[in-house]
């Protein structure tokens, strides 16, 4: 109520232009403080966004945007004609899909299991352990992975050797790269992902469990009938965020594992854009690819949002 009154009085003050000016002047500090932040977003976010127009040019770094020739959608056409790009698009989609199928559900399952732990000390210990990998960089995670999978000194190959299997150079095999990417993703992030679901589970009314128990519902039944439905909105929101980032698997996460031997199955849009754009300097072509990715990402968010609004009433905006 108090805030409503205050709001009304704020607007009443502006019966004239001059009074508005006086109001701004009185709180000038707020306006001054906001300037650097706004400038940051303009310079580092909006100018690059508008700079994406070079996707429709043959951009030359010497001529600039003003002097480079316009070529329309040539680069986009070229993109879909090259088998090389289609291969990369396929990798990106497949890895994104595997990520959604295999990585996304793990934190939900883990959160439910952690919530079932009765010993509080064990619960704390488990949480401490599973959050840890989140804080390690991808370079470190890749280093650890390499150590474990090393053909000569890695523990995995020692175990395989015990069963008489020849050492395998996992990071040098095309067929293992996607599995490695997904596996390290689960190792690094699934523990951390439980936080949000554990918070949602903590919000479940304990009376519900009690009455369910009286009705003779077992633990599994309770999980499906009470826990899952209550955390469903959280799951939907997280799923939406995931869909929106479908093509955004992450440059670092792939780049640290990539080498000429596993490139065919491991190269994704982000790593290709880096190689062809920054290293080989095909500025316009790779901007077209990047723009394609951003626009598809935006569409995915909008579609996902609409679907979820219809299905569950939950939405991001």
């Amino acid at each position, binding site marked *: 109520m108090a805030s409503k009154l205050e709001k009304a009085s704020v607007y009443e003050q502006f019966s004239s232009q001059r009074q508005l000016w006086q109001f701004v002047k009185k709180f000038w500090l707020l306006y001054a403080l906001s300037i*650097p932040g706004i400038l940051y977003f303009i310079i580092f976010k909006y100018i690059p966004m508008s700079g*994406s127009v070079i996707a429709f040019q043959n951009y030359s770094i010497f001529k600039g945007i003003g002097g480079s020739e316009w070529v329309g959608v040539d680069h986009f056409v070229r993109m879909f004609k090259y088998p090389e790009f289609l291969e990369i698009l396929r990798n990106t989609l497949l890895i994104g899909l595997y990520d959604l199928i295999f990585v996304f559900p793990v934190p939900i399952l883990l959160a439910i299991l952690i919530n079932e732990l009765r010993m509080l000390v064990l619960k704390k210990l488990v949480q401490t*352990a*599973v959050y840890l990998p989140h804080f390690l960089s991808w370079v470190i995670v890749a280093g650890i992975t390499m150590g474990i999978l*090393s053909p000569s000194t890695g523990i995995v190959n020692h175990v395989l050797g015990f069963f008489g299997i020849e050492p395998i150079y996992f990071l040098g095999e095309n067929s293992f790269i996607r599995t490695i990417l997904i596996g390290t993703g689960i190792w690094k992030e699934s523990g951390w992902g439980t936080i*949000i679901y554990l918070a949602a589970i903590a919000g479940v009314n304990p009376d519900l469990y009690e009455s369910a128990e009286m009705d003779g519902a*077992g633990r599994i039944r309770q999980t499906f009938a009470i826990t899952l439905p209550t955390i469903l909105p959280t799951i939907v929101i997280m799923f939406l965020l995931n869909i929106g980032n479908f093509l955004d698997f992450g440059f670092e996460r792939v780049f640290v594992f990539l080498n000429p031997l596993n490139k065919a199955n491991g190269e994704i849009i982000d790593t290709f854009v880096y190689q062809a754009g*920054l290293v080989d300097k095909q*500025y316009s072509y790779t901007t077209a690819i990047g723009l394609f990715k*951003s626009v598809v990402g935006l569409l995915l968010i909008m579609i996902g949002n609409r679907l979820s609004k219809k299905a569950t009433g939950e939405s991001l905006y």
Partner: protein
Amino acid sequence: MRKMTKGQRIFNYMNSIFLSLLGLSMVLPLINIIAQSFSSSAAINTGAVSLWPVDATLSNYKVIVGDSLIWRSFLNSVIITVVGTLINLAATATLAYPLSRQEYLFRKPVLIMVLCTMIFSAPLIPNFLVIRELGLLDSLWALMLPMSIGAFHLFIMRSFFMSLPSELIDSSRIDGCGELGILWKIVLPLSKPALATLAIMYSVAHWNRYAEAIYFIRDRNLIPLQVRLREVVFQNQFEDPTNYMMLQTISPEGVKMAVIVVGTIPIILVYPFLQKYFVKGMLLGSVKS
């Protein structure tokens, strides 16, 4: 305490065992790496090292000490973490504060402007060209300024400011406090927990920064630690000829493990704080969305 049936008790045991094993699987690889880094080459090559060093030695670390580029990159990482985080805090707080106040009339447009950057991002090359145009290529600023404000962090800070009781601001204004005084003497001191959370979130990101360094830094003297780590671990790039000599007798595997440990130790040391503040921050942020 609820009474448990036999089936439930079995489930509890299995669940405890499963989650304990899972927790161990997150920690044991790290311990294995640490153990290897302190072991002799012979022990590493025969696979004798599990969770405790075999033929304990410091020779792997001696190779690292001789690599001046590792120290230089370590220093670069410290600089971008400290200075970068200070920039982050200043920039995030100064924008979040007006956005939390009724008297700031551009709240809506600015919030929409920030939200748009969350769902649509510019491709790499235009970003690169802007950094280049600003003359930031091959300078540590390129690893600090372009990530001054995280949209997610901004919303965390804003909702914290909004949660402060407005009576506090009103009463201090009656006491004759100017706008600057309110921010400096009342709001910021009360916001220490939120600022600490943000500082930790930002600084971990700076410490682990890799992609931007690959994009924007060519000068070998300016690379951060993560870049150097990957070179040593994956490309066997070592510095001095003396090191090559030593590598004749020491297998590179042990040195690689030692390098990984050097990159991980700072994170492990601050992990207790990290866990506490990060969880807080995650929950603050998720309440918002």
